[in-house]
C-alpha cells in the first residue's frame, strides 16, 4: 500500500494554514472519500460541505492542486502527485476550512429578471416547438457548484468587480432566458450596463472547470455578447430596428423586473459608450 499526503487548508476568517495528513491510499477512492477518512480518523473538526457524492448537488466544490473541482468527482488515481493540496474556493469568503460563503451568487441570481412569458394562446395555454428549446437544455444541466464563478479571473483576481459582475453561471442563466421562445424581456442592455458581460474576456476557464461540461463560453457567453452587439454596437442592426419600428428595452426597464438590485454602484464603473436608440 502506498501512502498519500493530503495538504489541506485549515482556518477561518481570522487566518489559516496548511495541515498535512498522511494516509494509506485505498483503491477507487475520490478526493471526498479521503477527506471523509481524515474527518473520521485524524481531524474530526475538519469542515467540508457535501451532500450527494455523485456530482449532482454542487456542494463539494474546492480547489484540488490549484484546480477548481468537485471533490466527489475527482478520482485519486487521476492525480499524479503523492502530495495533494486542497484549498477552499478562492473567490468566496472563507467560513471554515474547505467551506466558503457563496452568497455572492445568490445576490447575483436576484439581479436577473425572471422568465416572463407574453400572452397565452386563445385556449389559455402556451406552446413551443422542441427545436426552439433544445439549445437551452444544455444550460439547464447546471448544478450551481459555482466552480465557474470561482475560477473566473474577473472576480477571482479583481474582487472589486464583484459589484458589477454576474459571472459565468449567471450568463448561462441569462442565455437560457434570452434564447427562450416565449420570454418577452430584453436583458441585453441590462447585461451590458449592469451585469458586466463586457468584463468577460472569453478566456474559457469557466468552460474548462464546469463539471456538467456546459460550453459556457461558446454557447452562452459569446452568443450573448453577439446579442449585445445587435442591441448596442451594430449600426445595421440599429437601422433595422428603426425601419421595422422595433424597440429594445433599456437596462433600467429590465432591471425593474428583477427580484432585487445591487446597491447603487453598478453604473459607476461602466461607461455607456455605444449607439443608443
Amino acid at each position, binding site marked *: 500500500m502506498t501512502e498519500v499526503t493530503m495538504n489541506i487548508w485549515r482556518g477561518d*476568517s481570522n487566518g489559516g494554514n496548511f495541515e498535512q495528513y498522511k494516509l494509506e491510499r485505498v483503491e477507487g477512492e475520490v478526493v471526498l472519500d479521503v477527506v471523509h477518512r481524515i474527518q473520521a480518523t485524524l481531524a474530526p473538526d475538519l469542515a467540508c460541505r457535501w451532500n450527494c457524492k455523485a456530482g449532482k448537488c454542487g456542494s463539494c466544490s474546492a480547489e484540488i492542486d*490549484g484546480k477548481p473541482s468537485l471533490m466527489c468527482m475527482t478520482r485519486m488515481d487521476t492525480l499524479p502527485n503523492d502530495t495533494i493540496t486542497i484549498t477552499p*474556493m478562492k473567490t468566496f469568503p472563507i467560513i471554515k476550512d474547505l467551506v466558503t460563503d457563496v452568497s455572492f451568487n445568490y*445576490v447575483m441570481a436576484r439581479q436577473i429578471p425572471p422568465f416572463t412569458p407574453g400572452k397565452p394562446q386563445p385556449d389559455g395555454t402556451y406552446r413551443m416547438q422542441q427545436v*426552439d428549446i433544445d439549445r437551452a437544455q444544455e444550460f439547464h444541466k447546471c448544478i450551481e457548484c459555482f466552480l465557474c464563478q470561482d475560477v473566473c*479571473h474577473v472576480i477571482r483576481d479583481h474582487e472589486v468587480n464583484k*459589484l458589477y459582475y454576474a459571472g459565468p453561471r449567471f450568463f448561462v442563466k441569462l442565455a437560457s432566458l434570452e434564447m427562450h421562445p416565449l420570454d418577452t424581456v430584453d436583458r441585453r442592455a441590462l447585461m451590458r450596463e449592469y451585469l458586466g458581460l*463586457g468584463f468577460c474576456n472569453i478566456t474559457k476557464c469557466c468552460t474548462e472547470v464546469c463539471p456538467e461540461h456546459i460550453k459556457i463560453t461558446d454557447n452562452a457567453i459569446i*452568443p450573448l455578447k453577439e446579442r449585445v452587439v445587435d442591441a448596442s454596437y451594430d449600426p445595421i442592426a440599429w437601422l433595422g430596428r428603426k425601419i421595422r419600428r422595433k424597440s429594445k428595452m433599456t437596462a433600467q426597464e429590465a432591471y425593474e423586473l428583477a427580484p432585487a438590485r445591487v*446597491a447603487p454602484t453598478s453604473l459607476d464603473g461602466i461607461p455607456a459608450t455605444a449607439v443608443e436608440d
Partner: protein
Amino acid sequence: MTIAQEQGTVPQVVPVEIGKARGGPTDKSTLRTDRWWVSPAVTVTVLTSFVAYATFAAFQGKDYYVGAKMHRNLISPFYSPCIAESCQRVAGSHPLGIWASFWNFSPALLILIVPLGFRLTCYYYRKAYYRSFWQSPPACGVADGHKNYTGETRFPLILHNVHRYFLYLALLFNVVLTMDAILAFDFPGQGIGFSVGTLVLCVNAALLWIYSVSCHACRHICGGQINEFSKHRIRYRLWKMITPLNERHMQLAWVSLIFVALSDLYVRLVASGIIHDYKIF
C-alpha cells in the same frame, strides 16, 4: 407580472460584500502543479513566428506573383486582392487588378489590415492572446498578471464588438482568394492544368472559407440570434451546419493561419526561382 412583483417585494436593494477574508495561501499565484505554462508558451511562439514571417513577407514587395514567364498564374494570399499600382507592373497579367495609384509601398500592407483585423478581433484569438501575451489570466486558477481589470468594457478593447464587420470583409476576401485559386488552373501558353501551386492555393482558399464560416459572429448572424428556430427553418439549418464547425474554431484558426503563411512561402520560393512548381497534369 413577476412573482416578486405579485408579492410586492420589488425593487429591493441587496448588497454585494467585498473585502472579506478568503481561504488559501496569499503568497502564491497558483497551486497548480501541472505544466500549465506550456499552452501559453506555444501560443506565444507560434503567433510571434507568424507575425515575424508575415511582416518579412509583407515588406518584401516582390516575389509574390508567378506569371506568364514561368507559365503560371499564382499569387501569394498575402498580396491578394492586389490593388496597389505597383502590382500592375509585377502582376500585369493578373486579371483581378484594380490599381490604387496612391500607394507606393508594398501592396501587402494595403490589404493585410483586413485579415489582420479579422483575426485580431476573433473570439478565439482574443482568448489565445489574452492568456499568453497579456497574462489575463495565463491559465485557469493562475493569478492574472494585472492589478486592475476592466475586460472588454472600455476603449480600446470595446472595439472588439466590430468583429462581424471584419467577418463581412473577410468573406469578400475569400471570394477573391477563391478566384485566385481558380486562376491557378490557368497555365499561360500551356492551357489548363494542375500543379502543386494550384493545390496550395485551393487548399488555402478552402481553409479560409471553413475558418470564416465557423466564426462565432457568423454562427450568430446565420441563426443564433433567433429564438424561435421553428419559424425560421432555413436559418435554423444553417445554424445547425455551422455549429459543429464552430466547435472546431480553434483548430481551424491555427491550421488556416499556418497554411496562409506556407502558401505565401511556396509562391515566394517559386517566384524567386528557388524551387520549381511541379505540374501534376
